[in-house]
């Protein structure tokens, strides 16, 4: 599903050039659940953003669903992203002015899904994360764990092939964190590919493989003996 070759990302400010990613070669197969770990500033989030087509690499190749995306413009990337990738953020990033229901409905609106189907799918997604009873609430009326469940519902409502999660439990206590990890595992078991950035070794254990980044390089890749046994279909 995902293949990068010699991926490179540098940031320029007025005086300094910083290298965030350097020659990253990574392959993620369909159905896989990988964790990306590493110290602060090692380039984890940069990698995730490039994988999520939110950012572009400075150099190197990136193939997503057999398409070369490194040279795409914002418009093309947005098109490819739509419906194929769902995001879960550390800080939830729900829109404050929209209700739970409306937040989850948002990706479907941008996909021009007809109204009736939208209702069904939003309801299914909210059921799945067990937050249906809070559908008319606004984000600030919910606990952190509930907000992240809404965010997960929003990430999956469009049935994306890939979910990218950036420290999804970072702002949650351990109980709520565990809930979210179980949700992600269920999604993965149902066939969704997941790439997750995390600081937490416990969370990483839910995945099939851990990629360790250091100073923009992949230093090790560990295949996990999964806690909740499940092997990806390797294509």
């Amino acid at each position, binding site marked *: 599903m995902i293949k990068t070759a010699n991926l490179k990302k540098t940031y320029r400010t007025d005086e300094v050039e910083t290298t965030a990613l350097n020659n990253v070669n990574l392959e993620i197969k369909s159905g896989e659940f990988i964790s990306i770990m590493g110290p602060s500033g090692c380039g984890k989030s940069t990698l995730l953003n490039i994988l999520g087509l939110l950012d572009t690499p400075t150099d190197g190749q990136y193939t997503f669903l057999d398409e070369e995306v490194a040279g795409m413009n914002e418009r093309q990337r947005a098109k490819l992203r739509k419906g194929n990738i769902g995001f879960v953020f550390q800080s939830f990033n729900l829109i404050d002015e929209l209700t739970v229901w409306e937040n989850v409905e*948002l990706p479907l609106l941008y996909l021009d899904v007809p109204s009736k189907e939208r209702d069904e799918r939003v309801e299914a997604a909210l059921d799945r994360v067990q937050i249906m009873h809070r559908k008319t609430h606004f984000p600030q009326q919910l606990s952190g764990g509930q907000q992240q469940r809404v965010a997960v519902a929003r990430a999956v409502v469009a049935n994306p092939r890939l979910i990218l999660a950036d420290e999804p439990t970072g702002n949650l206590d351990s109980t709520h964190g565990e809930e979210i990890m179980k949700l992600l595992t269920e999604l993965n078991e149902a066939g969704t590919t997941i790439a997750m950035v995390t600081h937490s070794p416990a969370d990483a254990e839910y995945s099939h493989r851990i990629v360790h980044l250091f100073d923009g390089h992949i230093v090790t890749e560990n295949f996990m003996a999964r806690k909740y046994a499940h092997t990806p279909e390797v294509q």
Partner: protein
Amino acid sequence: MLRNYLTIALRHLRRHPGYAAINVVGLAVGMACCLLILLFVRDELSYDRFHDNAERVYRIVSDWGDFSVPATSWPVVSRLEDDFPQIEAHARLLQTDGLVRYGDESFVEEHLFAANPAVFDVFSFPLRQGDPATALSRPFTTVITPEIAEKYFGDADPMGQTLRVDNQYDLEVTGVLEPIPAASHVHPDFFLSWSTLDAALDYSEAMADNWGANGIYTYLLLPENADPTTLEAQFPDFVDRHAGSDWNGATLLLQPLTDIHLHSHHNSEIEPNGNIAYVYVFSIIAAFVLLIAGINFVNLSTARSAERAKEVGVRKSMGAQRGQLVRQFLAESVVLAVLALVLAVALVALALPAFRALSGKALDVGVLTDGFTLAAFAATTLVVGVLAGAFPAFVLSRFQPVRVLRGRLRQGRGGGWLRKGLVTFQFAVSVVLIVGTAVVYTQLDYLRSARLGFDQERVVMVPMQGGDDVHLPRYDAFRQALAQQPGVEAVSASSEGLPSELLNGTGIAFADAGVPDDSLQGLRLVAVSHDFFDALGAEMVAGRGFSRELPTDSGAFVVNEAALDLLAQDLPQPLRAPADALGKQLRGWSEWPPRGPLIGVADNFNMATLHESVEPILFMLQPDWFSHYVVRVQPGDLDATLGALRSTWAQFYPDWPFDYRFVDQAFDAQYRAEERLGQIFGIFAGLAILIACLGLFGLAAFTAQQRTKEIGVRKVLGASVTQIVALLSKEFVALVGLAFVIAAPVAYLAMDRWLSDFAYRTDLSAFLFLGAGGIALAIAVLTVSYHALRAALADPVQSLRYE
């Protein structure tokens, strides 16, 4: 999707009521200004367009270069149709006034117009009663307005009734007009048949060769697509053919009917006209007020963009295209504009009565619902919504999701500069308007308090009624009786009611003093009686005024200094002093007036308003020209003195109503246009600065909030409240200062140009500009300091914890 946009727009506004209020109120006030001005402009532009032939009608103008009247003489008018068969019809109007009596009731009427029957062909003045083809064909007939019918006849049928004019002529009512629209350059109360002039005054015969009396307003109906300049080009030949050397020297021009109201500024206009310059100025100012409100929207939404950035990032990561986000933000600003519109319509409805009084226009609430207004509302809303929303939409939709979602968003330097530039612009406009207001009022004050060259207080003008045959026999006895009354200091008479346009003039020169025959100077002619200069309190520079003791004075002349300066140009150098000119003979063009000695030179004094400089004037004793008694009264019990005037009048003029006005008030009344301009400027200036300050208030709140942590740290490190307030106000003060630097020259040039229309003008003092800048600065500082003070007084621990 649209519903989603609207939902979020409304919820956003609800969550940020302060922000919403600033934008909605500002935009509403700006839009209300624009809508009112739009109504005003539409009305100004609609003048005389109700005539079916409006595009084909032209008025004749006689132009002498420095002097022009929108009228011409009988010898010209009477030959037009013979010489120019292409003229389909011509309407002629000759204005007069008269005492109109029906039964026991009589009124002095000033809007009587003698008119030929074609007036109903050239113009669209429909008749409610009577036949336009015949209503004005017989002598001694009149067509009146419904108001006049009501005034004289009440509910009775006016047709066939008889009105007596000047206690002399009986006019039969042969028609009643439909009401004449307010947007007309002329509002006759009575049309009286032109043939009445011949029957009563033998007018055609008497005026047959009078090329000099240019009082007939003449309107030509030209064929479809005719070029008026072709006709105009034929006038010189026409004049040559018929008048030859008798011609009065004017160039005959044609003026489109629809240009009269806004573009015609001749002497002797029928009614005071509008001015296209003011239409432009008011439109521009209204647009600027709206622009200032629009800038608030741009500034506040870009300043607060950080708050919206997360949403943009989320939406983009959900798959929103940039175009979709642009549409969303535009929808938001349009929602805001619609809310503003609702408020604006309410404001317009509320302000309409005041605006009606201010503009003198008959605009009622009905204008709010006609098609034009509704279209204007819709267009304004859409334009405001889209223009104000476009830039923020552009900026916000540009955010890269990866940056904003990671909280890396910084206020772009560029946005900051733009914001500063726009604030500067807002205050520059405000300062220009404040200076404008101040200059207009200073000039108004100057006009009202300026010395006219005579003692204008306590001078009463009493218009003489009827013709020469009424007042000439009574003049001396009335004057003497009046002079006996307690409180009356002096009584005289003049051909002019003050202020006057001084429409009479001719060529004058010194006779037999070596002045070439063809060197005549154009002077204004004013007929006065004895004691005129004393009654006004005007000084003599040399010689004396007219004396009752010297019968020879009846053929003598007095000039003012301006006239002597002109006349003396042709004299040898040693004889130019006023004293040397006394006793010399003066002669006139075509030997009229008859030669006579110059007995006095009067100091220059203003008989016209201070828009004009003092004209060169020849004063002469010419009782049959008198139109006003000039009475100087003593200070003290004015009511008693006026009562004495009235009762003396009733004794001598039992059949004529008494009317009077004070000269100083009459001069004041001529400055109404300036007064109106001052008021409108003042209102606009107030609104502009109010809206600009609303924006500043919002920005200050934003800045204070953004710098909460900095303020906390500074306070922990020992900064005082004053220092913090100064820190936060400094930037805005600098912007207002910059605005002043930009505005001052603009205001100077604009107002200097405005003042150049006045012969007598106040100086543009630096004090005035600094005052305006000071006011803007003070208001800005007050506005900003509220938030600055709040931020400075806040507990630093709170702010640091918050961060």
